[in-house]
């Protein structure tokens, strides 16, 4: 079975500052890793994912995450945040294989202040 830990429930940051949202996972098998974003009163949108290959994955809006197998982490980073990045961010993990479902962390609220 897999599990995900997002230690920070809320991360306040000023606009144009860098940010890192932490995600650690636990699994006895190889995994796929995901970051989803949820804007107020909306569903979840896939931000980026790691399936295989390069351990550094990027999104179209400047976020990136690095898969670190030795530290079982998949932290999300952005070098300069905007007010519009304010949202809830969820890390998720799935074991390899078609029968595995996505397991989500409890989420981190990124609050960008002017």
């Amino acid at each position, binding site marked *: 079975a897999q599990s995900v830990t997002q230690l920070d429930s809320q991360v306040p940051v000023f606009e144009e500052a860098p940010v890192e949202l932490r995600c650690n996972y636990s699994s006895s098998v190889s995994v796929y890793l*995901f970051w989803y974003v949820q804007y107020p009163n909306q569903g*979840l949108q896939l931000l980026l994912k790691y*399936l295989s290959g390069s351990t550094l994955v990027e999104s179209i809006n400047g976020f990136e995450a690095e898969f670190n197998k030795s530290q079982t982490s998949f932290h999300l980073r952005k070098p300069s945040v905007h007010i519009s990045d304010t949202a809830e961010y*969820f890390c998720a993990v*799935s074991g390899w294989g*078609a029968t595995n*479902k996505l397991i*989500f962390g*409890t*989420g981190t609220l990124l609050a960008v202040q002017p």
Partner: protein
Amino acid sequence: EAGVTQSPTHLIKTRGQQATLRCSPISGHTSVYWYQQALGLGLQFLLWYDEGEERNRGNFPPRFSGRQFPNYSSELNVNALELEDSALYLCASSLRLENYGYTFGSGTRLTVV
């Protein structure tokens, strides 16, 4: 291409009543997943349907049930509603048995009073 659609957007029920939530997956997607997002608890996996069959079930009581229809749309039923069932219920879909990332709908906000 239409995304995952859920109805109704909001639902208010009285404790003890039954609630029915509906989900239409993206065209071509045969797997449908239901998650409960209660305040402060993140997303909890509820149910997974594929090709009309229940593939997996989360740690929820039997009064949470559902089904998938031949057109791959799905229904979530919650019987004997309790106050703590108040939550955002999210539906997601994917290609058959593919776990490379799901596409989510906007959810149904269920309020039990």
